């Protein structure tokens, strides 16, 4: 019988790599997409990657697991606030320019 | 603030009052007529399609094939073909209504000089084709006579030159 430590899902590295992949995918989205909302979605992915990291460290390394969870909750709250603001800005941009194209949004000055 | 709570309370109360009504009816007996399980009696004036009055004195209909009804009918749906069975008396050889055009106005019944028509009490008329709606009044009368145990009025023979001896195919009786 394999020991608990050997299991894939009981290893810190698994989660770190996973978070990394998520981060990379999110990064790609931020760089490649033109649609502002798609960019926002990508940003959410990156934030989630961070959350996974936090939780993973919390699970495997941290002295008091509750604290890591609290921090993750805070990340969620901030993500929510961020999403709200970002969406509102996107909506405002859309109304101004009638477009959600990021390249057109860069024309937004003053 | 007071109005805020007052509105909530009165609103809540009104909803309860409504629910009281529905629950009251919930326990009341139902009003549904169990139609196909129970035969309905139609009101005396009920208008189904028209049919001949079965005159109990003569044991047959009173129609004299005068075609008044056919003429007044707004939809011109009555086909009457009369034959003279003797110099004075004319009877219908064929009396067919295409019920699917009828508007149940009652003009034919009222205009009949001999009061030979009445509305039937038939309400079960559904069929699988348009032709199912065509009613042959003579055939219907014959069925009625049979049921009443009366002598069946034969379909008068057409005069020879007119040919067709039989009435048209499937008509409802």
């Amino acid at each position: 019988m394999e020991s608990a430590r050997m299991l894939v899902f009981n290893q810190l590295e698994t989660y770190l790599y996973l978070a990394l992949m998520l981060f990379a995918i999110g990064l790609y989205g931020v760089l490649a997409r033109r649609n502002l909302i798609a960019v926002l979605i990508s940003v959410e992915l990156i934030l989630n990657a961070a959350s996974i990291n936090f939780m993973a460290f919390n699970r495997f390394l941290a002295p008091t697991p509750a604290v890591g969870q609290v921090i993750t909750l805070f990340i969620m709250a901030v993500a929510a606030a961020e999403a709200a603001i970002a969406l509102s800005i996107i909506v405002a941009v859309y109304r101004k320019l009638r477009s959600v194209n990021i390249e057109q949004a860069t024309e937004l000055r003053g | 603030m007071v109005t805020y709570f007052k509105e909530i309370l009165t609103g809540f109360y009104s909803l309860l009052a409504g629910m009281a009504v529905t629950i009251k009816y919930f326990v009341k007996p139902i009003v549904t007529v169990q139609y196909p399980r129970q035969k309905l009696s139609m009101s005396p004036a009920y208008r189904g399609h028209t049919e001949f009055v079965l005159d109990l004195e003569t044991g047959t209909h009173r129609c004299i094939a005068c075609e008044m009804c056919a003429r007044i009918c707004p939809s011109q749906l009555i086909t009457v073909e009369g034959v003279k069975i003797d110099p004075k008396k004319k009877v219908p050889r064929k009396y067919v209504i295409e019920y699917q055009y009828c508007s149940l106005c009652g003009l034919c019944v009222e205009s009949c000089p001999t009061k030979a028509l009445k509305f039937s009490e038939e309400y079960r008329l559904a069929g699988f084709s348009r032709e199912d709606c065509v009613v042959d009044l003579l055939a219907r009368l014959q069925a009625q006579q049979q049921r009443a145990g009366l002598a069946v009025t034969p379909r008068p023979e057409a005069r020879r030159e007119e040919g067709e001896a039989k009435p048209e195919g499937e008509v409802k009786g």
Partner: protein
Amino acid sequence: MNWLISLITPVGLASGAFIMVVAMTLLGALIAVAARNIFHNVLGLALCLIGVAGLFLYLNSPFVALMEILIYVGAICIAICFAIMLSAPMYLPLPPRHPLKILGALAGAGLVFAFLALLTKKTTWAAASVRSDDWSITTIGHYLLTDYVLIFEVISLLLVVAMLGAVVTARGGRGSS
């Protein structure tokens, strides 16, 4: 036969489920960035987030996992959907960027990934020497009420400010230019 049975032992189930969760996360993430239809992106995001919630379960925190679903899937995704619908043509796919740019993005993301992966590999992670085993929700609440009470209150303030900002921004549009 035996390996089949061993697959349905709790461990086997957990391993299999883990693969599913990972697949969900990554597939969702890919849909979220790659699909042309913006609505599919959102759904991809939702899928990915459910997967992430699954990961949190494996990280021993059902509470955070459920909250992930509640907040992200239930609220953020919905808000995004409404934002999409608010800006009518957003569901229309935009013309893709120049292939070169896409390649650039791919390369950039790949590079970052490689670099960080290397870093991860190189690092040895040391667990804290004394570890408490208290994962309960009550303890989270306890921390929120004591050590982190300031953040707890500040979060509510942050939310209020964010909402006010969002409401003002979203409402002042066409007319206020």
